């Protein structure tokens, strides 16, 4: 048994050790940064983040919420790229969760056909590299769908063609030289003309390919996580619920899923983080996400270290934010006893 004085000595030593470690780590980082700086300088490579305020000089094919033109500075271009990344990631998380949950439930089902379909889907999708799936979706979309002057029309409201998806819905129309508040709500219905589909609500094939690829790929992993979570709930609980007279939908909604959710959450967080990071593959099919904009900026300014640093920091921040939120949700689910 250590005495109390020994104990406090040990804690002091531990503290000192940790502080020394932190300082050493800090010094290494400072030294690396300093060396990089000296090396860049000695080779005549200009560096610094000042370029962020220079006009970008390139256009971005599609933007979310904001309009971008080439007079605006690089940091606005980065922001436009980030918004595109956020759009595709958030929709991807939503769709992959819904699809994954459905597939996971199907895989746990006692109905043989459902189970077989779900198992096959999971095994095929999760064993093909994402990039290949992404390129296949894109090629499928642009090669095999009809031209936009002759689209496939579903229910008079979904127009599918080589140039993407156009759909009906309410839009906030802003007059030509008015502000946002001058707008009014208007029903948009796509019209087919010889020049293609005219519509205010469109999704490009680039966006749809990356969204489909991310959602479908991630849903296979989520389905496995859901299935495993459900399988971990002991049979006894289900039998007990049955003996109390609960019907199967009640059992899964009130007994199985709430308990499985606690187990599902940590691996699910991982899948969400993967999805966000995988969205950087969008550059392969020409969707202007953050990486695509970063690459263009890197090429035009030659500030490789700076551009890559920005990309890393943004993805790091996004990932930390998502895991923080998921941890909060997880904590609110723990057993309170």
């Amino acid at each position, binding site marked *: 048994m250590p005495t109390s004085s020994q104990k406090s000595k040990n804690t002091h030593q531990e503290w000192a050790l940790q502080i020394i470690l932190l300082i050493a780590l800090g010094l290494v980082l400072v030294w690396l940064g300093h060396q990089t700086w000296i090396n860049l300088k000695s080779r005549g490579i200009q560096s610094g983040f000042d370029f962020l305020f220079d006009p970008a*000089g*390139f256009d971005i*094919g599609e933007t979310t919420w904001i309009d971008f033109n*080439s007079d605006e500075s690089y940091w606005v271009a980065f922001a436009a790229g980030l918004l595109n990344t956020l759009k595709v990631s958030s929709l991807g998380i939503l769709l992959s969760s819904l699809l994954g949950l459905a597939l996971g439930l199907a895989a746990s089902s006692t109905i043989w056909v459902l189970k077989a379909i779900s198992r096959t889907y999971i095994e095929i999708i999760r064993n093909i590299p994402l990039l290949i799936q992404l390129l296949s979706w894109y090629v499928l979309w642009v090669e095999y769908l009809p031209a936009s002057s002759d689209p496939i029309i579903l229910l008079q409201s979904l127009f599918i063609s080589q140039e993407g998806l156009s759909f009906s819905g309410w839009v906030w129309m802003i007059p030509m030289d008015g502000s946002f508040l001058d707008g009014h709500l208007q029903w948009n219905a796509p019209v087919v003309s010889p020049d293609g589909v005219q519509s205010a609500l469109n999704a490009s094939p680039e966006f749809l390919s990356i969204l489909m690829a991310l959602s479908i790929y991630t849903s296979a992993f989520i389905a496995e996580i859901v299935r495993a979570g459900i399988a971990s709930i002991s049979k006894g609980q289900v039998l007990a619920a049955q003996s109390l007279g609960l019907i199967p939908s009640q059992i899964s909604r009130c007994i199985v899923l709430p308990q499985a959710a606690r187990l599902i959450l940590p691996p699910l967080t991982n899948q969400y983080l993967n999805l966000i990071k995988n969205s*950087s593959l969008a550059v392969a099919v*020409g969707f202007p996400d953050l990486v*695509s904009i970063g690459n263009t900026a890197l090429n035009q300014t030659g500030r490789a270290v700076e551009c890559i640093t920005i990309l890393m920091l943004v993805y790091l921040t996004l990932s930390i934010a998502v895991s923080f939120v998921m941890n909060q949700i997880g904590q609110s689910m723990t057993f309170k006893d």
Partner: protein
Amino acid sequence: MIKKTTFVLLCMLVSLHCFAGKTLESIRQKDQISCGVNTGLAGFGAADSQGRWTGLDVDICRAIAAAVLGSADKVRFVPLSAPQRFTALQSGEIDILSRNTTFSMTRDAAMGLNQTAVTFYDGQGFMVPARMGIKSAKQLKNATVCVQSGTTTEKNLTDFSRANKLDIKPIVFEKLEAANAAYFSGRCKAYTTDASGLASIRSREAKNPKEHVLLPDLISKEPLGPMVRRGDDEWFAITKWVIYGLLEAEEYQITSNNIESLKSNSTDPAVMRLIGKSDDMGKLLGLDKEWLAKAVSQVGNYQEIFERNVGEKTPLALKRGLNALWSNGGLQYGMPIR
């Protein structure tokens, strides 16, 4: 993304040490030149099914290897993507970047690079399907245009679009396959990159190359040529003068076929100087007397390199045009070797 990041970080770490010696010394020590080339652009830098590299950019590296090390085979080719290429050169991973790279002020002044000599005068052009009946790039109003990322093309396209109020919508691809698929399926009305690149893509990827036309407008100047690291003037001079030498060889009609007979028969003082029969010009560069003779006999002069890789008898079928010698109305002008 991760690969690229690691690459940049590794280069930064490695670069702490890899700048000790002069480039020429380290090349002699390795007995090999590391040459950064395109990952696959037919006619300029592409590996064939046997893994042998061919192309105009590739041959420039071979010629330099022949002049410096005596053998055109002493080259290690490093295929590089557009965003990787400058970092690879800056960090010492390669000795020379010969990868259809445009010379520009930003690259020369701010990136620690030296631009050697222009090996191919190019310009950014447009390719459209012939059935559209478009005659000029100025007719591309509101068009979606497929662009390959990582070059100066995006900015040129935007400048052109704004100057002519065309409101062109770019779709920027990193993967060549996706860009090609998008264009050839009709997702984009037009495809833009350097005119030579368009010819290369048309010859290799189109089901029927006749169904696509290159528009006459060139919207930018794209002088392409090799780059070296800043801070090594000797190596800079060698690369520059080997390229000028290939041009001079064409001008004096020294070819890989006739060079042996010229060595024994020629009495023209300029020819004798070039092939190392009179003055020792190689000494000025720290090379041996027959530096240029070796390059020409193993790789050929500029004309032979051009015709072999991109000329009218190749699938690219490019005319000499701007790349003809100055004496034939082109821009290629080898500085005098004397």
